[in-house]
């Protein structure tokens, strides 16, 4: 359908539109007009993504003189794929109605691991090895050598891409990663570098959060995006965590050992160069004297991860004299590693601010703040000079330099925590030094400054006034939408007691109680016998899930559950989890029905939809609080209290409930959908906890459903399913009638 919002004609690829989608678009349009940032909460299951895409592309189409770029950030690659396929749908629709004028170039961008089509490279195990394998074939020095010696392997796709130079462009269209790979194969061009190049020219770019938020990645990918861009962070309820992660580093013993190996290797290389090609090292030195930490015009294939500090905070001056010489720099690194090793030997937990840490480095290792700050750039330059292409081997020293640069750059919002062992396993020494960022606003600040409109949106942003404080920005529009419903398509319940009327909870004292485990098992057993198709269960942590599933197995409960449905489980191995999910979907598709065990805050909870028959019921076992004894968390809480006056308890509850809401929200994707949600913990019945749930869940939570036991919940589920089923029957009956009419 086509309609007008003020001066913009919106092309919307469906025949109908939900009222809240319209309202959402109106608000979004105002924010775009005002060239400001906005914060929008809209329940899952109301077609947020398509509303966003459709308004922003239409907005861009309506202003051809001043085209805006649209940068869409997703949490995960599979969400990227989903978004791109929705965009495809929309694009086709716009082409139909506008003709060639609507042509845009939209593409997804991911790492080499996901885009490479060179079979020898892509078979490598993980991302870092793929990156390294690619560099081994495409780095400028390798190609120079290969030009002289044809026996040195290069990547034909990259060579072809380079050869076609300016001709290597993507025709307009919407490209998923798969499409990019296919196009690359067709043309014989490297899809990764093609995509990297096209990102600058594309109308719509879809990529992961990190490409904007993590300065290391943003520095090489998103540096040249124009100001006239609309940046959207979808599913942004966790954006604060992503931001603080982007600026945090942790160092373990293995890191230090690896770093030492790296340093030795580099010193060998330096000796080798001194003997064979001393001029090169001298050239580097001269360049550093001139004040250039990095050569400005690196070929794309040489670019490594950029400086971990935010662009505004990077010093624009010459590298200090005492680390200009390669040997001197290496000895500084050695001393730094030695110093950190000494700190890790501690018996007690230590916590200090960056300023104290830098001072102590200075007195004990003789490395001043400025040297620390330049560590990263100096390392980068050295590695290029030494022509090191197996970058995956050098991650350890890179981590150390990241750490040094960050700790030298920032004085507040960070703390350094050294733990000699994990709190829960005091007998196993596992020292770790963590530089943790507490201030989420740091990483996102450059984004707010650089781009004219930033949209932060999700199904769960309550309380909506907290986010502007956490991220330190002023939205021009901040709104929370409710769902308009013609029927109850979600049915949330709070289960507080098991079948034996005893309370259930994952509270610390009740957690390992066999009675609670049994009650949880019985609940699931009841539900699998009542609810058709897919059921998803979320647990509070991997260890809790493993424990409870094992105990169900031993008591035979699991066997009974398997009488009804197949059981799949999320593990920490992503390959296995992905296959399990795929099989889960197949089992739901073929009508066999299945249960999926998953973990709140885990990878599945973050981005996999369990809509329609893939999830008729979701059970949240317990309240997914963070591990409250974690030092990092405590430090962050302290920072939040001091800086934003947010109470610890409030923040923890807020965080736990947004995770829970996120988990249960996975079952619904449109209003034709139907899903039940069970919050199985007595703590949900308390008002202070419950009230933190988003409005669209609360509005369906009836008072009668606040304090249920297993049998009552089973009864409600049975009734709910029956009601839903009868609606199906009505549809069938109508259809029958129409056939009957025709045949008589």
């Amino acid at each position, binding site marked *: 359908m086509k309609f007008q919002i003020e001066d913009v004609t919106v092309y919307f690829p*469906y*025949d109908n539109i939900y009222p809240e989608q319209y309202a959402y678009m109106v608000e979004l349009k105002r924010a775009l007009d005002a060239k400001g940032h906005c914060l929008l909460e809209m329940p899952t299951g109301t077609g947020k993504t398509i509303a966003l895409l459709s308004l922003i592309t239409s907005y861009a189409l309506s202003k051809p003189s001043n085209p805006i770029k649209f940068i869409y950030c997703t949490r*995960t*690659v*599979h*969400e990227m*794929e*989903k978004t791109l*396929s929705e965009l495809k*749908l929309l694009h086709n629709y716009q082409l139909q109605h506008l003709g060639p004028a609507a042509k845009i170039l939209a593409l997804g961008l*991911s*790492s080499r*691991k*996901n885009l490479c089509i060179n079979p020898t490279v892509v078979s490598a195990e993980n*991302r870092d090895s793929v990156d390294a394998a690619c560099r081994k074939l495409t780095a400028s020095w390798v190609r120079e050598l290969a030009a002289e010696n044809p026996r040195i392997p290069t990547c034909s796709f990259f060579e072809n891409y380079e050869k076609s130079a300016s001709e290597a462009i993507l025709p307009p269209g919407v490209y998923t990663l798969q499409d990019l790979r296919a196009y690359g194969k067709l043309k014989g061009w490297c899809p990764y570098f093609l995509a990297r190049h096209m990102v600058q020219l594309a109308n719509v770019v879809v990529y*992961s959060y*990190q490409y904007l938020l*993590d300065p*290391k990645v943003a520095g090489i990918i998103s540096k040249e995006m124009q100001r006239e861009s609309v940046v959207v962070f979808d599913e942004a309820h966790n954006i604060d965590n*992503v931001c603080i992660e982007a600026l*945090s*580093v942790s160092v373990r013993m293995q*890191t230090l050992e690896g770093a030492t190996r790296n340093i030795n290797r580099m010193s060998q290389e330096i000796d080798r160069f001194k003997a064979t090609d001393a001029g090169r090292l001298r050239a580097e030195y001269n360049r550093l004297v001139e004040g250039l930490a990095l050569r400005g015009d690196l070929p794309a294939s040489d670019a490594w991860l950029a400086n971990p500090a935010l662009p505004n905070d990077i010093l624009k001056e010459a590298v200090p004299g005492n680390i200009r010489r390669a040997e001197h720099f290496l000895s500084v690194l050695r001393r730094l590693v030695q110093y950190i090793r000494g700190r890790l030997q501690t018996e007690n937990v230590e916590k200090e601010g960056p300023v104290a840490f830098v001072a102590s480095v200075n007195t004990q290792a003789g490395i001043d703040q400025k040297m620390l700050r330049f560590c990263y750039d100096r390392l980068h330059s050295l590695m290029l000079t030494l022509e090191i292409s197996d970058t995956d081997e050098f*991650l350890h020293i890179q*981590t150390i330099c990241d750490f040094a640069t960050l700790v030298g750059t920032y004085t507040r919002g960070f703390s350094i925590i050294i733990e000699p062992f994990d709190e829960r396993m005091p007998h*196993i020494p*596992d020292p770790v030094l*963590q530089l943790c960022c507490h201030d989420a606003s740091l990483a996102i600040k450059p984004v707010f400054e650089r781009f004219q409109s930033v949209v932060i949106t999700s199904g769960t942003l309550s309380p909506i006034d907290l986010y502007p404080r956490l991220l330190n920005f002023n939205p021009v529009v901040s709104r929370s939408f409710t769902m308009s419903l013609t029927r109850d398509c979600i049915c949330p319940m709070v289960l507080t007691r098991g079948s034996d009327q005893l309370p259930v909870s994952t509270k610390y004292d009740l957690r390992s109680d066999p009675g609670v485990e049994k009650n949880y098992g019985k609940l699931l057993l009841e539900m699998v016998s009542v609810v058709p198709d897919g059921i998803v269960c979320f647990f509070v942590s991997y260890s809790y899930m*493993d424990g409870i*599933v*094992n105990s169900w*197995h031993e008591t035979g409960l699991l066997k009974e559950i*398997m009488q009804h449905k*197949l*059981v799949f489980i*999320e*593990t920490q191995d*992503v*390959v*296995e989890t*992905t*296959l*399990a999910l*795929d*099989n889960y979907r*197949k*089992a739901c598709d073929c009508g*066999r029905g*299945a249960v999926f065990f998953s973990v709140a*805050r885990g990878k599945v909870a973050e981005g*996999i939809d369990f809509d329609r028959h893939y999830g008729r019921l979701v059970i949240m076992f317990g309240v997914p609080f963070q591990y409250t004894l974690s030092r*990092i968390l405590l430090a962050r809480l302290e920072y939040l209290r001091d800086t934003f006056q947010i109470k610890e308890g409030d923040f923890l509850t807020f965080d736990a409930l947004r995770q829970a809401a996120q988990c249960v929200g996975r079952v619904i994707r449109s209003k*034709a959908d139907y899903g039940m949600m069970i919050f199985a913990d007595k703590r949900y019945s308390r008002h202070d906890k419950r009230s933190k749930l988003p409005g669209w869940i609360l509005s369906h939570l009836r008072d009668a459903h606040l304090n249920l036991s297993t049998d009552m919940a089973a009864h409600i589920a049975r009734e709910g399913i029956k009601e839903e089923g009868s609606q199906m029957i009505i549809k069938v009956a109508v259809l*029958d009638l*129409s*056939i*009957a*009419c025709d*045949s*008589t």
Partner: protein
Amino acid sequence: MADKQQQVVVKRARHKSSVKDPGTPGVLKMTKDRFTFMANDPSSPVKLNVEFRTIKGHKFTKDGTKQALLNLTQDQGGNYIFEFENFPDRNVCKDFVASAIALSGEAGRTVPEKSAVPIQDEQLSAAEMERRIKLLQEDSDLQKLHKQFVIGGILSEAEFWATRKKLLEQNYSRRPKQRVALKNDMWSTKPLADGQSNRVTFNLTPEIILQIFAEKPAVRQAYLNFVPNKMTEKEFWTKYSRAEYLHSTKNVIAAAAEAAEDEELAVFLKQDDMLVNEARKKIRQVDPTLDMEADEGDDYMHLPIQDHGLPRNDNKDVLDSQYEPYRRSFSQHLNQHAAVVLQGRVIDVELGDTRSVAEALARTKHAELAKDASDVYLDKERLERISRMTEIEDLQAPRDPAVAPLSIKDPRDYFDSQQANAFSTLGDTVSGAKQLKCSVSTREAYCSLKECISEIKFQGLTEPTINSEVAFKVLNGLAQNISSNKYHLGRNPNESILDSLPKITREELLLHWSSIQELLKHFWSSYPITTKYLLTKATKLKDAMSQIYPKLQEIKESVQSDLRHQVSLLVQPMLQSSVFMDQAFCCRL
């Protein structure tokens, strides 16, 4: 069509050597120049293949007498006696024989056309016949109906089966034998310890072995490698059980120690490399909207081994890496098990022979993996699925007519066959008015259906045979009220009214219910009454219906007074329907 039907007639019949003889059941097939008879029992000696040239004349019993006989006399004096199941069958054969004899006598003369009869007996192959017999044997309800109406002469054989084409077709395609799924039962090695000695016993059945082989390709491979060259079957399983036992004790160090001593045991204790490889291949075929592995490839934050955001409240690797291969998580097993069960029984081998089971499994696995991810068709299907998934269903006009997924047992058959009938009669009467496409896609069919309905809605039926509201009421009453009662019968006996009735009454009621349905089916299908043939059919049906009416009344009166109300509730829609039918018929006349 009619001409073609003249060529062959096939009927069930008994061949008798004399009138008193019980006879051999079989199939009689007549073609233009000869007739053959094949006994149902292939071992039976009775087998005829006679040319009509040799037949001099034929005799037959009168309609309505005890037996439907046809006697063909040979010119040498011998004769063939056939007994038919009913007179219409016999009559068809009789007519055919008459013309055949005439034809063979006076060669060159054309066979008189019999196209006046709209519905001819279909040409029936022996196989078709057998199928019908089988269906009747399998379904006693159907047999009762068949007996009542076909043998009772209300419907012809062809008419009876016309409404059950679906049923015949299903059997015709000879559905593959239903495959039994694997049991969703984890073979958790629950060792049976007897408490006194240190012995631990494991039970292995062929079924369990199949499961082990399917779930653990390494064990399968080991079996193929070791047995019987290196060790006997018994030794193999003992070793396997030992390994399982070690796992069940969860003592990783002990497992590693034992494995170090015994390299065959190590095969079972180590992680399954084949599974890992398989997983790596399969991951490329996974729906990209699920692919979390791709995420990992894009995740620059968790650089080497960090895990900041997720609180690390998990058991960390306590052990040295040397034990790593011996760790096996229960969840992994769980997923693998579910995947295998989902895939179902992929091989079709006798379970007893362990070796052949292992080989067959290995073969299928191999073939499966050979199908590469680059399969274009798979890719396309995957893309289609994704685009379907992305659409928001209730904002969109229905994508495909939602006709296909329905599978209502009886009404469906009914409507299908009705449509076919309607088309054929329409084709006869209004042929030329509208070109009928022979092969229409579902979409086209749906569109034309929609058009038809809207046309009717707009204009009303051209010849209102019956008030549409009334018809709808009847249909509803029959389809929902009674059928629901019947189907609920077995399930929740407490709620069923029928169950409270005495058994005989219940049976009787159900019988009437089904006969009424059958009659109604045929009655409505003969609408619009355009030919004389249809008229006679409708009349017959109406008469049959009116016979049931008093019977229903009888039942109603016979039951105890406390149940009478409920019974009358049940009976009412049936009565009503017959009344409506009467009305409709009268209107028509």
